[in-house]
């Protein structure tokens, strides 16, 4: 187990290192001069020179990279050029919207997918199975931002159960949850469709195993066998998908936040792009990638905890 952990840790560190190099190169080296890019075509040479100086762009590239990485490790992500505040502060403000939204969507996806997947596997080949599978096909084909618009049309404008957009802040948790509900459903449904399909096929594969027949022979009902024996073993592929989905949800939230005008990381990143605030873009992208790499790492560890065979193999 220790060797496995060590190997995963090294790979985690390497991924972060390469990711930071790629992002740094993309933002600070490829465009040529970030300062004149940020200021646009009409900026005077003095202004550009002043910004170059302030951003430390006159220093050699390796030194700038080191300074950026060391700053991030210490929690200093630089200062936003347009907002004139620390990027870390901006990100923290937006994170309290984006993270709960992604988690809310993840919970919803699991709550929808598990009964659907279980039902389809238990009633394999029958009408219920075909209905669930048909519904998941449509769910996968659904662009979440369009689904979000339909949800707004139905539940915000026609029935007025949920707000159509905006975020009131966490001072009133009930209102905050109401504001996040439609975005979370829009994010969750396509992911739930994928999850339900994976769960169904994993369950069907496990149900073909000998120990399931033994359990049935022991006198357990079909439902009991699925719940106590099959589900537990079918969870491994489900967990992989779940880990991957968290990153999809974070990234998907970038678009959904724009549909609902939620002040999260996604809105921040788009505002930063239109305002050419490269410092914000660079740091937010790095944070998103860090989150994805970290989740992948945690899923790998969870695997090893669930399936001892994986520990031995490496």
């Amino acid at each position, binding site marked *: 187990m220790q060797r496995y952990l060590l190997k995963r840790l090294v*790979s985690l560190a*390497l*991924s972060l290192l*390469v*990711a930071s190099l*790629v*992002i740094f190169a*993309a*933002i600070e080296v*490829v*465009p040529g001069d970030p300062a004149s890019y940020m200021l646009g075509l009409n900026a005077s040479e003095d202004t550009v020179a002043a910004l170059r100086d302030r951003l430390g762009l006159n220093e050699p590239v390796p030194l700038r990279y080191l300074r950026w990485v060391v700053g991030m490790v210490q929690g200093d992500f630089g200062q936003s050029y347009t907002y004139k505040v620390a990027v870390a502060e901006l990100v923290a403000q937006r994170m309290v919207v984006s993270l709960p939204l992604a988690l809310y969507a993840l919970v919803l996806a699991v709550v929808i997918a598990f009964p659907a997947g279980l039902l389809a596997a238990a009633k394999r080949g029958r009408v219920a199975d075909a209905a669930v599978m048909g519904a998941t*096909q*449509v769910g*996968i*084909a*659904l*662009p979440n*931002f*369009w689904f979000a*618009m*339909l949800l*707004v*049309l139905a539940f915000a*404008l026609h029935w007025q159960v949920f707000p159509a957009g905006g975020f009131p802040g966490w001072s009133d948790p009930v209102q905050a949850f109401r504001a996040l509900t439609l975005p979370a459903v829009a994010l969750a449904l396509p992911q739930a469709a994928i999850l339900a399909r994976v769960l169904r096929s994993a369950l069907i594969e496990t149900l073909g195993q000998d120990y399931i027949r033994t359990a049935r022979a022991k006198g357990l009902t079909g439902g009991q066998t699925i719940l106590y024996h099959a589900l537990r073993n079918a969870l491994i592929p489900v967990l992989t998908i779940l880990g991957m989905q968290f*990153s*999809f949800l*974070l*990234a*998907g939230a*970038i*678009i959904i936040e*724009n*549909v609902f005008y939620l002040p999260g990381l996604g809105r921040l*990143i*788009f505002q*930063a*792009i239109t305002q050419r605030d*490269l410092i914000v*873009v660079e740091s937010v*992208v790095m944070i*998103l*990638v860090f989150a*994805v*790499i970290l989740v*992948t790492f945690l899923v790998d560890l969870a695997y090893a905890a669930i399936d001892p065979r994986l520990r031995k193999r490496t």
Partner: protein
Amino acid sequence: MRLPLLLGLALSAAALLAALVSLFWTPYDVTALAIADKLQPPSPAHWLGTDHFGRDIASMLMAGAQTSLAVALVAVGIGMGLGVPLGLLAAANRGSLIDEVVMRGNDLIFAFPSLVIAILITAVFGPSATNAIIAIGIFNIPVFARVTRGGALSLWTLDYIRAAEVAGKGRIRISAEHILPNILNLLIVQGTIQFSLGILAEAGLSYVGLGAQPPTPSWGRMLAEAQTMVTIAPHVALFPGLAIVLTVLGLNLMGDGLRDHLDPRLRRAA
């Protein structure tokens, strides 16, 4: 052939036909504005109604199909063109440094959600259909590399590959002559899946303004423009969304159906 496969083929063919026909004919000119006819509901003159500029929605959907399919197709081409040779190379030299570098490089691209790659690219080079293609294409590379490597690895243990090796064929020649033809099925199926994902990704990027730019018609951008009018003219938002869902659904059904059809073992099991 089974019903889902037929349905998938029909839907995919319809999207392709719409795109091809739009190359030389659409019911109305998609760039001509007719403000007097704006936001009309579906009628015999305009089957799917008109948008806020009075443009015919059916014509725009046809031209939009062209953008969606072209972006997704080129993105799949990039993914296959680079991913398949990388996967073959990694499998032919299993456990070597090349294998390790290819697989770790893949892990890295997987760590960037495709939307984040697109954002990075557009932040630096500005939004355009070409940059959307590159962003989606980059994400396709590791997918194809992984599928190719997986399929190729299982083949390398087989006797007829060993025989070719003994006969003095090089690893690259074996990969091209024996491995590649035998994993073609896998690649076709994965290609369909990536193609449908590409259409969804293009729609998403165009919706947030990072994809095709005006006046190029695009399903995603039609939805973005429709959003503000969704209360007064829901049909403007309805039809582009339906076009995306039906096309993606068709491609997915076709992919699933082809997999079952091309793999005789699955056909018997089903």
